[in-house]
């Protein structure tokens, strides 16, 4: 069981790496915004499996925190990426008085 779960973690991590390579290379900032999403799902799956394998039950708490903060990071990427798009385009959603 533990060998199987460890192999699953390794596999998911390798897939995560491949996905990261594809995303971070992706032409344009819009592709790179997806990185936090990718880690949000793949990283949490890996964390939960690692927690079960090593018997660290608190890994679930880390996964919970990771879920929240990966979402927050994604939103920040979109917001900041959006404003860079708009400063090169029409206007800005932010008001500096």
């Amino acid at each position, binding site marked *: 069981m533990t060998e199987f779960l460890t192999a699953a973690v390794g596999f998911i991590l390798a897939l995560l790496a491949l996905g990261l390579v594809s995303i971070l290379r992706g032409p344009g900032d819009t592709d790179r915004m*997806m990185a936090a999403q990718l880690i949000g799902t793949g990283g949490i799956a890996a964390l939960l499996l690692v927690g079960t394998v090593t018997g660290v039950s608190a890994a679930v708490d880390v996964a919970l925190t990771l*879920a929240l903060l990966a979402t927050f990071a994604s939103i920040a990427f979109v917001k900041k990426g959006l404003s860079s798009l708009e400063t090169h385009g029409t206007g800005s959603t932010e008001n500096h008085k």
Partner: protein
Amino acid sequence: MSLARDIMTISAVSAGVFFFLAGTAGLLRFPDTLTRLHALTKADNLGLGLVVLGLLPQAGSLREGLKLVSIWLLVLLAGATVSQLIARTARQGETAK
């Protein structure tokens, strides 16, 4: 009983890893941002859900199991909304070109 649990864990986690594989394949092979976003969000979230399902029999108590399920629900909610945000940014980027 323990054998049934182990079988369920192995099969669910294997299915989860398979969906991660499918998601990453989509990420690598799909042509543009929106389709890749689709592959990332849908397939990876389903993979995570199956992994969580597989880890439920191994969880120590009901509370642990509830925590696992709530993590998945949070990731699902966050993934659905953030992917909309990213998609809109991608659309805006396309029309700006």
